[in-house]
Structures are given as C-alpha cells and as structure tokens.
C-alpha cells in the first residue's frame, strides 16, 4: 500500500480548476519528482498532502490517515509528513537552533535538553554546527534552507514534501542544499518534491511526474520522461527547457 495517495482529487480556487481528477501515489522509500511549468499546480498538490489546502472532491491519504476527512487529526498528519518551502519560512525571531527546537518542545513535548541535543545533531548534519546561535537574517539563503530542512527533520517525519526548495537560491548555493536531499534519498527517505532542477531529478528520482492541467499528464522513470517522453505536452515542455539552456 502506498504511503501517500491522492485519489481523484479536485480543487478549485473560486472559478479556477487547479487540480482536476488528480491521481498520485508515493510508496515508502520512493523519491517522486513533480515537474511542469510554473502555475500548473505542483505547490497546490504538495499542500493538499499535509492539509495546508482543503480539497473539494476526491480523497487524500497519508498512511492510514485520510487527510481529506473532516475528523482527521491534522496535527498527526503533519507530524508524519514534513514540508520544506521555497522561501524557507524560518521564524525570524528565533536563532537557528531555536527554530529547530520550538516544534519539538511545543508540539512533541520534548524537554529542553533533549530538543537541544537533537537540534544540534541535525544542524551539524547539515553543516551548520558553527551557526546554531545565528538569527536567520544573518544566514545565507542556502544556510537558511538547510536550517529549514533540519527543523523539519527534527519532527522525525516519515515522508518529506519539498516545494522548489532551491529556486529562491543563488546558483552557487543550490549544490549545498541538494547534497542534503541526495543524502536523505540514499537513506531511503520517502519524498515528494516539486523541482526545476532537471539534472537533480534525473539523479535522485525513482519516478518523474509531468504535471499539466492540474493532473499527472505523464509519468515514468526519470530517464524516460526527461529524455524521451511519449506525449506532446511533455515533449513541448522539454523542448522549451532545452531552448532556454535549462536542460
């Protein structure tokens, strides 16, 4: 049974159909990359998985919890799937280590010492052991995003949702963040990620999904979808990427 399941999901913003009979499954230890032009609905899909957006039709499951059910314990869902955002969204009034500690203490109820130990270990893991007491504004974009990943990992999630986590970064900072994602993938973390980094998708993805018209338009192994797709919209998307030297 897949860990994350979206079944016939429909979502509208007023008159706009953002998601349209969307079906998507992510198994344990899979790394699924969502690609597609901006505005096609990738972020919305991710936000439906952890209930940041509600849906109008269909159903979303995480493990045995139905996210779209009105009686689900949403906080339990969110403890299972962590999310990392395009713009980091670190808490600016807290230092790096406090950012990683706050939810451990207030949501999981860990005591201060234990939370600090875990936070320090995770920040060291993402290469920031020397910056634990810095405020976000004193960190580079790449460092902020690494803190954000540590903050999410501190909740011991069983899966991660990564929403274009490198697209707000200067090019030279992208590598340090992707390196961490690569390690997580090697450790078998279940991940669903929206990305513009095609070479990275090719490297880590067990499956690539091309999103169009609010649904999965074409999916398959990275090598197939990113080199030799069958359907016309995927082909056109890749052609545009090649023309703009992004592939």
């Amino acid at each position, binding site marked *: 049974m897949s860990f994350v399941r979206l079944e016939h999901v429909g979502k509208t913003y007023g008159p706009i159909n953002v998601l349209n009979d969307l079906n998507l499954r992510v198994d344990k230890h899979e790394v699924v990359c969502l690609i597609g032009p901006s505005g096609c609905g990738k972020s919305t899909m991710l936000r439906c998985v952890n209930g940041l957006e509600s849906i109008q039709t269909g159903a979303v499951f995480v493990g045995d919890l139905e996210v779209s059910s009105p009686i689900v314990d949403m*906080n339990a869902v*969110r403890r299972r799937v962590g*999310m990392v*955002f395009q713009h980091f*969204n670190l808490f600016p009034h807290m230092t790096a280590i406090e950012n990683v500690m*706050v939810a451990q203490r*207030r949501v999981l109820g860990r005591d201060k010492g234990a939370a600090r130990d875990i936070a320090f270990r995770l920040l060291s893991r993402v290469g920031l052991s020397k910056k634990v007491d810095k405020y976000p504004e004193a960190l580079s974009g790449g460092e902020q995003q690494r803190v954000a990943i540590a903050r999410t990992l501190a*909740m011991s999630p069983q899966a991660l949702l990564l929403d274009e986590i490198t697209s707000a970064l200067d090019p030279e900072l992208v590598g340090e963040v992707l390196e961490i994602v690569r390690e997580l993938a090697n450790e078998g973390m279940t991940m669903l990620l929206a990305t513009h980094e095609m070479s990275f998708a090719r490297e880590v993805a067990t499956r690539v999904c091309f999103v169009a018209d609010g649904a999965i338009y074409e999916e398959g192994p990275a090598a197939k979808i990113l080199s030799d797709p069958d359907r016309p919209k995927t082909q056109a998307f890749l052609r545009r990427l090649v023309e703009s030297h992004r592939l």
Partner: protein
Amino acid sequence: MDQTIENPAQSPDGLLVVGQVDSDGDNAPHGFPSMIPPIVATVLFPPVGLVSLVNAVRYRRSVREGKPAVAQALRARNWATYAFGAALTTLIVVAVAAFLLLNDHAVLRAYFDLDALSKSIPDIAGAFVSNLTVSITAEIGIVIWGLVLAVGRSLPGRAYLPIRLIVVGYIDLFRALPGLLTILLIGFGLPATGIGFFATMSLYQTGAIALIVVYGAYVAEIFRGAIDAIPSGQLAAARSLGFGYFGAMRHIILPQAIRSTLPSLLNWYISVLKDTSLLSVLGLVEGLTTARIQVTFMSNLSPLVGVSLCFLVVTLPLSRLTDYIIMRSARKRQGKA
C-alpha cells in the same frame, strides 16, 4: 583643505555661492555667505554672532584678494548657520521671558509661585501615584485584552464568523464613543448592577476596567495590523510542523507581532496615563483633581504646573524611548539591506 576656489561663483558643493562675481571681479560674490545672519546675531547673541562676523569678513577679504580658500568658505558658512540658529533661539527665549515678566511678573507669579509649588507638590505627587497605579494595571489588561480581540478578529474560516462579527462590532463601538462617556457608563454602571463582584469593586478597579474596555479596542487594531503584516508562510510553516492554530499564534505569530508593536504600545501607554485624569469624574482622587483643589485653595495656578511636571517626568522619557526603539529597528533594517 588648502584648496582654493577658482571661481567663487562655482563652489565645490554648489551651496557656497549663488550669485555671480561682478564683471570687474573685485567685489565679494552676491548671495551666500550673506552678511545678514552674522550681523543680526551679533546684535541678538554676540558670542556666536561675533565669531560668525569675523569669519564672514575674512572670507569676503579672501575673495576680494582673489584667493578664496574652501576651508575658509566652509567655516564662514557653518558659523553663519550657527549665527542664524542662535539669533532665532535668542528671539524665542526673549519672547517667552517677556511674556512671563509682563505686567509686573503676573504670569510668572500665577504659574510659577515657588512657595505654592513646593507646598502643593507633595500632595499632588502622592495622588499622582494613583494615576501611575491605574495606568500600569490598565496597560497590562489592555495588552492582554487587545491580543484576545485581535486573535478573535483574525480567526479563520466560516465557523468563526459570529465571533469575528462580535469583535468587529465591539472594536467599532468603543472607538466611536468618546472615552469620557465610556468611562462614565462603566464607572457608574458596574457598581449599579448590584452584582456583588462589581458592587464591591474599588474606584481603581472600575477605572482600570473602563480604560481597558476603551483602549483594548484601539490596541486590538494595532495587533491585528501587526498580525496581518506577518507573511502567510510563517503560519504555513508552523502548521506544517504540527502546531495547531492557537499554538502557532502563541509561539510563532504573536511573538513577532508584539515585537513590532512595541513602540505603538508605549505611545498608547502615554495616552492611557494621560487619560487616567478622566477618572476623576468617577471620584477617583488622582493628581489632576488634587491639583485643581489646591488651585482653588491657593488662588494660584502653580499646582497645575506641579501636576504637569509629574506627567512630564513619566511621559517625556517614554517618548524618547519610543523614538529610540523605532530608530534602532530602522537602523537594523538598513544594516540588513
């Protein structure tokens, strides 16, 4: 700084000289540095005036000799500016002094009778402690009540619509009424209810409640603005970490919102402190009431000056502190950019 100006009409900063040199070249340039401020200042306030006059004359001479130095020109202009400031200050001081001394010191005696002042100030200061106590108690209540209202007004979803409407109604109502009216309504109304809890309340307590009711509405709007100004990603991040709505508010959103409202809160505290004098209508013996009684008693206005001093001792430092906090956070933002 031994640089010289080739053409005094084209000074390095474009401010030094605005006029043109006469065609025969031996005249000082028209316009700045004008001789008028130094001369006026020499008459009104000689210490600065004379220095500026000397500098202006020196600069003119150096221009006439055809070798005006930049350093000299700058000095002349700086002293001309000081001279202008000194002359203006002197005028204001003289005018105020004249007003006080007019009519055989009538004004001075009415307001600053040292004898009356020193006799009345102990009582006034003692009563002013009430103003401080009530205002501080009220301010604490106002911040808490304002936060509750602001959170109530920001509750998401259709289920909370009734609560939002009630809060909006409350805020609109108490901002629309004169504060004095609300104080009368609550101050006389609560004890009149006959409900034991309210009936036994002291004037301090009903007064503080009245201020909390009025100012809570204003402060709630400040908090709401601050909450709205926090990027939506903050709430999304907190929720995605498993925080509930109120947990996210308490630990993530409100700490940021309160920080940014600190200067406004200080300003509102100043207003609250000033409005504690309105509580005299309820019969609270506070600084201003005491001062007014003394005025009648002594037929002299000095007690009013005394109570003014009490207010100023608290409010002026707070105003400076507010400015300092605003300046510091502005500098921080600039340093970041």
